[in-house]
């Protein structure tokens, strides 16, 4: 008994020592989560949601990596190898796609219809506030997309994973569109609320810069012919951009305080808490947009895989 336990422990430690890159993956994920939390400090959602996300992450990590390390690392290793191979990725994503589409449609429809038609009007802004059901999910998706690009960029640079490069290429256009949607919907909302379409507010400025950063990545990718080289260049730019985005965020906040601009809060001065009857449809539409995000990214990644592997046997069989 004692022996087997000791053996098991040593085996576990070997197993944990072997896939060293998984520690790095976990670290990167954690880092991305923390960064997202710092950047998304706009008082739209209650902190408890982010704390809840942290708890979920912690519980998964505790039970996964610490209690059942064998299963956890083996699963991760399998995913790493399977999802890292374009062919398996193509097959697996083909299986997921119908489900993701269904979930995205249901969540978006429910969230938007509920939010636009049935949620109560705001006591100061009346019905004009309803644009948050488009605005907030788009902003959040734009921010998370950039974080995801940074993580994918790091993975692409360190392990030269082809799929990570493809992912960056798939994420960038949708992220740029989301940033643009966020800016435009924000402008439309700003006219009745703040009396102007555009103001150099810290949040608006940060989103504009984020849009520029997305466009830079897209421009770099389009300028380089060789797809592998373009992918690696875009990876490096994304990693640099993610580090920069944090500094940009703080510099813009500081710049705002320096110029004593009118600091606007989303819901007047009455505190940032959102009433549950408004929050529920907001959360639904947020998750709906995330699933829409996943669908778009997968479809774009699948097209890119087919294009890059167009000379291989399996693509010919797949297409014919």
């Amino acid at each position: 008994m004692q022996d087997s336990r000791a053996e098991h422990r040593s085996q576990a430690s070997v197993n944990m020592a072997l896939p060293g890159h998984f520690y790095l993956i976990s670290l990167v994920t954690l880092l991305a989560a923390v960064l997202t939390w710092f950047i998304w400090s706009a008082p739209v959602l209650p902190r408890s949601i982010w704390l809840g996300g942290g708890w979920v992450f912690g519980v998964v990590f505790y039970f996964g990596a610490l209690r059942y390390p064998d299963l956890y690392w083996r699963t991760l290793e399998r995913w790493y190898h399977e999802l890292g191979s374009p062919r398996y990725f193509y097959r697996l994503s083909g299986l997921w796609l119908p489900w993701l589409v269904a979930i995205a449609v249901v969540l978006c429809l429910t969230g938007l219809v509920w939010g636009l038609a049935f949620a109560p009007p705001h006591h100061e802004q009346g019905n004009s506030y309803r644009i948050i059901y488009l605005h907030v999910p788009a902003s959040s998706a734009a921010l998370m997309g950039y974080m995801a690009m940074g993580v994918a960029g790091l993975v692409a640079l360190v392990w030269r994973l082809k799929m990570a490069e493809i992912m960056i290429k798939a994420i960038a256009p949708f992220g740029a569109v989301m940033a643009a949607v966020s800016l435009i919907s924000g402008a439309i909302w700003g006219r009745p609320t703040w009396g102007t379409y555009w103001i150099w507010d810290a949040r608006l400025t940060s989103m504009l810069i984020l849009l520029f950063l997305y466009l830079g990545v897209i421009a770099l990718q389009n300028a380089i012919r060789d797809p592998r080289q373009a992918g690696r260049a875009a990876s490096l730019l994304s990693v640099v951009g993610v580090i920069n985005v944090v500094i940009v965020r703080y510099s813009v906040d500081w710049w705002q305080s320096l110029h004593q601009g009118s600091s606007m809060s989303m819901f007047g001065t009455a505190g940032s808490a959102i009433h549950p009857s408004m929050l529920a449809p907001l959360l639904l539409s947020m998750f709906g947009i995330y699933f829409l995000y996943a669908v778009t990214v997968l479809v774009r990644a699948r097209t890119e895989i087919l294009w890059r592997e167009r000379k291989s046997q399996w693509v010919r069989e797949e297409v014919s």
Partner: protein
Amino acid sequence: MRGFNATLQREVLLAMRSPAEVINPLFFFVVVVSLFPLAVSPTPDLLREMAPGVIWVAALLAVMLSLDGLFRTDEETGVLDQLLVAPVELYFTVLAKIVAHWLLVGLPLVLVAPVLGYMLQLPVSVLGTLMWGLLLGTPSLMVIGAIGASLTVGLRRGSMLLALLVLPLYIPVLVFGAGSLGRALEALPVNPVLAVLGAVLALALSLGPFAIALGLRISTGD
């Protein structure tokens, strides 16, 4: 470190032999700054208010335009490939190139800035802040811009792309740099802001050369 000294000497020697590349960014800086009074108004109060932004944006553009050729000549003549396979750390080679480039292009900007500041009606008391800010800020601009230059080195018409990649990344330095001068004009303490600029410089100098070296390897298809 052998690579560092050799590269530094080579860069300085090359620049001495074709001084136009050193003088042109400086000339650009001076011309751009002098356009603003002509375009806006020579009113001293207005000029004083605009001066921090004008000087910093002009310095930023001058640095960025000068970086376009940082690796291009080396790439065309094949020197870059030699540097990549040389048995010295690319980190130090890259660092040497940036240090040399800053000494030749950045330092003159810092030295001429007080004159331009005076011409834009800045009080003499804030010219020290202007110089300190540029002294801490222009090396960061060099490093960040060199990352973009390393990624666009092999591309035709890369200079426009370089601007698109690099200008959004320049925003923090610009904000803190021009902000320090703005605070000095209002007689507020500027040391905290200069400290932030120094922190950005430390980050850029320590991590930047890694990114530049990686960018060069990517661009040369290594």
